Structure formats: structure tokens, C-alpha cells
């Protein structure tokens, strides 16, 4: 059953169907770039530092709850009932934390040559008609100059040969930081009329030869929390925020993105994800 009423939720709680899963993560760098999104994937903590696949267009992979970096302990047939998060070290570090299901990723060179991609596919955890978003972070620090490329993908409806607008990277992006130079983008823009991506088939290098490596991930945003400052937690009851409760696949690779609103050094984000099962 999916939980759609408070009565159903209370009944589930009374039957001890709640599982609390803690987390305690930081981004790879102690000094994020203000106003630019970052990923926790390659940062220390609980869960452990996330791995990246072998570099190359042929090495895309599907990420699961067994992938190093994924939040551990998610029960089967789970829904996210509530959560509580905060940050621990800085009195002035503020920002927005986003929980995503990191479904698939691929490790490419910043100046990856044009060609087909294999294995960057999110369909195994997407319902019919659903799509993911394209998140791109630096693995190794990018070269000082920017490059421009496009991605050709299949959209939320299964229509192929869709192409992103030019994706321009930001030179010298550090590990974990979004590589998108446009200050308006969290995720890569899509072809107009699309709202999601099911798989990515190829990359086209439009211009540039700057080096470094980048991780392109297909992610599904699940929850966002505002972290105002140390001492201020953020609690959400999902039933009243986005009824019905978000269903979480038992193979979900749960990971975090961080948008630093303040310029202060980022502390550790920590908290608890509270799942209720059928």
C-alpha cells in the first residue's frame, strides 16, 4: 500500500514499520564556491566516499544501494515518511540540501571526444513517463579553460535523438562542484519541451580542449531541505509536503547535492531519513 492518509501512516508506525537511517556527510572540499551547487558523492562520511566508474565512454554504470557512496540501510518497499537534517560546524554556513536517487553515471574526460556512450541509462528505476535530471560534477579539477559540448539523449517519453543546448563548463571547477558555467543552472538544460531524461546516448564536443575529468549522473530529486545555520535543523513530514509519500526503490542509490548559499566553509550535513514500509 502507498501511504496517503495520516491514519495509514499512524497504523504503519504502530506496527513498527519505521526505519531510521542516519547520514553524516561532507563535500570533498572544505571551501565550496558560494552559490554554485556541489555534490557530496566524493566526500567523506557516512555513507563512505562514493566511487566513480572507470573513465571512458563505454563504462557507464547503473548505481544501486550497493554502490559505495549510497546511503545504506534502506528497507524494501519503503516510503520516505519524514526526515531531519542540520549542519554541524559553522555558525554561518547556510544552504539547500537535496536528496537524489543517483541512478546512473559515467566518468568522462573534460575534453571527451565526440562519440557514443554506453551504460548511462536510468530506465531501470524510472516509471513509464518519468525522467531524470543531468547532474555534472568535476572528478579531478578541470583545466582553467572552459569546454562546450552537447549530450544526445532519450527523453521522459522514450523519444530519442533529443539534444541538449550547448553545455559550457566552468574552468578550474574543483572536485564535487557542478561544471556548468551558467549561474542559473543546477542541472544541464534540456531540449525545449522536455522535462526529463531516461538515457544518454552520445556526447558531442563542440569546442575546447581543457583537461580534467567529470562525472555525468542521471539523478532523480526526491527531497530538498533548507539548512539555515548551525543550531537550526530542518524537519519535513513528507505526507503533508508531497502526498502521497515518495516511494523509494529498494535498489536506490541515495546521494546528496549541496547548494551553498553562504560563503562560509561548509561543515558536515547530518541527519536522519525515516522510512516506513508496507
Amino acid at each position, binding site marked *: 500500500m502507498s501511504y496517503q492518509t495520516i491514519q495509514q501512516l499512524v497504523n504503519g508506525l504502530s506496527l513498527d514499520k519505521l526505519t531510521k537511517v542516519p547520514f553524516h556527510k561532507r563535500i570533498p572540499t572544505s571551501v565550496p564556491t558560494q552559490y554554485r551547487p556541489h555534490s557530496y558523492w566524493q566526500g567523506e562520511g557516512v555513507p563512505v566516499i562514493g566511487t566513480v566508474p572507470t573513465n571512458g565512454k563505454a563504462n557507464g554504470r547503473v548505481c544501486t544501494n550497493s554502490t559505495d557512496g549510497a546511503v545504506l540501510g534502506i528497507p524494501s518497499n519503503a516510503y520516505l515518511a519524514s526526515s531531519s537534517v542540520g549542519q554541524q560546524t559553522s555558525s554561518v554556513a547556510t544552504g539547500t540540501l537535496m536528496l537524489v536517487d543517483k541512478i546512473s553515471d559515467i566518468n568522462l574526460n573534460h575534453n571527451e571526444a565526440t562519440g557514443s556512450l554506453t551504460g548511462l541509462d536510468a530506465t531501470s528505476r524510472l516509471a513509464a513517463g518519468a525522467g531524470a535530471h543531468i547532474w555534472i560534477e568535476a572528478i579531478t579539477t578541470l583545466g582553467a579553460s572552459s569546454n562546450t559540448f552537447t549530450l544526445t539523449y532519450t527523453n521522459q517519453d522514450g523519444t530519442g535523438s533529443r539534444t541538449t543546448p550547448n553545455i559550457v563548463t566552468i574552468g578550474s571547477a574543483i572536485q564535487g562542484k557542478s561544471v556548468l558555467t551558467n549561474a542559473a543552472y543546477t542541472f544541464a538544460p534540456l531540449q525545449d519541451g522536455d*522535462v526529463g531524461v531516461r538515457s544518454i546516448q552520445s556526447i558531442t564536443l563542440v569546442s575546447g580542449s581543457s583537461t580534467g575529468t567529470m562525472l555525468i549522473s542521471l539523478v532523480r530529486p526526491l527531497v530538498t531541505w533548507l539548512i539555515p545555520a548551525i543550531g537550526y535543523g530542518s524537519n519535513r513530514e513528507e505526507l503533508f509536503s508531497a502526498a502521497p509519500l515518495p516511494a523509494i526503490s529498494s535498489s536506490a542509490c541515495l546521494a546528496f547535492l549541496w547548494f551553498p548559499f553562504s560563503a562560509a566553509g561548509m561543515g558536515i550535513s547530518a541527519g536522519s531519513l525515516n522510512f516506513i514500509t508496507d
Partner: protein
Amino acid sequence: MAVTTAAGIYSEFALNGQHIMFGKANVVSTGNTWATSWAAAGLPGAGTGTSTGKANGATCSRSTAGSIWYNNPRAGRRLYVVGATITGSGNGALTLVDRLAHVTLAQNEATGSITGVTGTARLDSASAGNNMEGGQILVEVASVLGAGDNVFTIGYTNQAGTASRVTPQFTLTGGTAVSRIIPVSGLCYIPLQDGDRSVRSIDAITLVSGANTGGTFTVSLVRPILDVPWVANIPFDRDYVGEQCLLPEVIADSCLYFVGVPTGSSFNPWGVLRFVDV
């Protein structure tokens, strides 16, 4: 719309909902004085005006620097704000607006016709009778004004398509800082000629008195979309489907940003907007 129930909207959000993070740098204001986040750094980055001059009016879109970025609705669908979580320093009230078009003028801009400030691409037909026929006139300081007041009126075409309408006089107060909105009797928008309720295009400006120079101001045609109060360090979740029954619509290609009135001297909204197309 394809979906007509709250449950249907929530289900669509679970498939392809957009979680749009944003955060704008502090705009130092005066308590209880309107200000705009348009030119502030952040996510999205800073927006600008046009080249100075009455002939340089331009329409704005989601691709205009300064606009919050989002995916347009799919063909045959409409895009709605279904939720928001917002906070900031201090307390105050925000309005999410669509910046339809704008033009930057000199502090002592001579009387004459204005070209290019029209919003009809994202407005319903004249006299549609649904409050979507027109926008409002917003005047903000683009570069700090020199000493001394100048007085203007603005000529426009109203919601019914009637031209040669004229606003009451308003004062461009000398010394006003960047990103302050020129208020009239504490209001955010320039009042209209008696009997009018909205504006389809801004057509002319008349310098009534004063010859003070030194700064510039931008006249924008905006369509208010959503009002959101904020409280310092308390990120309230708002559900515009089941909780407030509002469903504010975002017209495709809207140029989105915030204006607001802080109770104190800080104006720096940040948080997340939740959109879905149905």
C-alpha cells in the same frame, strides 16, 4: 490541463517534478522598502538592464541572465508552482514575478517614445477578463542615482489594448541605491490611470520636472505570480495544491525572479521552488 485532481498533480510531480534551487546575494535595503533581487549575484546569477535609452527596450525570457532556470512545459501542458520552501536573513515578504520586458533609462531621460517594452507574448488577449491580459509597471534603480529628484509619468497601453494611457506622476528620488524599487505611497508598482488594472506595453516616458543626473533606472513590465512571506532561518514548506489551493501558473519562457520588502535591512531570499507541468 491533463490532470484535474490534487492526487493527479502529486502523481505527476513524483514522475517529473522540478525542484528548483535558488539563492540571491543580500541586497541592502531600508526596512519596509521594496527591493529587487534582479541584479544580485547568486543562483541565478546577476541580471542586467538594457543599454541606456528609450529605443533599447527588450523582452525577457527564461534564457535572460538573471532569470531562474526551469524546464518549459511539455506540448499541450501548463506549468504550475506546486510548492515552495523559502527563507532568508531577517523577515519580509517576497513576490515571484515574470519580467516580461524592460528598458534602462537615464536619470534625466528626456520625454519621448519607448520601444520594445511589450509583454503580449506571455499575456492573454486584451480584455480576456481573467487578469492575465496585462502586467504591472516596476521601476528599479540600475545605477545609484545622483542627488536631486526628478519627476516622471509613463505612457502605456492598458489591459484592453487602449493606448495613450498615462500613470500619475512619480518621483525618482535622488541618491536612491541600486536595486531599490521606486515606491509610490509604499507600493511596489507604479499606479495606473484611474480605471485601468494592468498594462500590455510601456510606450513612452515624460520628464515632468528636474534635470538631475548621475544614475540610471530600469522600467520593467512584470506579471506578479506568487506572494511568499519569509521568516529568518525558518524554512516554511508551502503546498500550493492541497494546502493553499492556488496553483500559480508559470507561462512558458517566463523570466522569473523575486522582488520583496524586508522588515529590516537585508533582502536575500533563498530556497527551492517546486514546479510540475500537467
